[in-house]
């Protein structure tokens, strides 16, 4: 698997988790098929926040790997 493919897979996995999480956090009931105005606003913000949290954790991982080297990473 090439690096680019790996990156695509990472993006796809992140997207799927984002869809899941934001559905859980923002969609409250299933009476109508359309998102309400409140739900839509919530979803938009949720996507931004999830993206931010993802970047944050990525930065921390990078710092950890620089500090500890591969031996400090048992995952």
């Amino acid at each position, binding site marked *: 698997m090439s690096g680019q493919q790996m990156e695509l897979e990472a993006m796809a996995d992140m997207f*799927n988790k984002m869809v899941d999480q934001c559905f859980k956090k923002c969609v409250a009931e*299933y009476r109508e098929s*359309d998102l309400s105005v409140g739900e839509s606003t919530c979803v938009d913000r949720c996507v931004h926040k999830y993206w931010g949290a993802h970047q944050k954790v990525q930065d921390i991982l990078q710092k950890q790997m620089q500090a500890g080297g591969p031996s400090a990473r048992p995952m």
Partner: protein
Amino acid sequence: LEEMQMRDSLRTFNGLVERCFTDCVTGFRSKSLTDGEDKCVTACAEKFFNHARRVGQRFGELSQKQQEDLMKRMQPK
């Protein structure tokens, strides 16, 4: 790559069934879905597709913005 995408869509689809089933089906006094469960599953799935579409739009915008920021930083000043 295509295989990967198919497997991914498959997992998303089955995850959706799981979610709507968990949230909508709570009684087991009959073999078939009750009217209420049926309506709930339908709305749940349709809402999920609308939701996924919206997340996709926002996600696309953020990815593009990131790409552009990366480009700008790589350009000589």
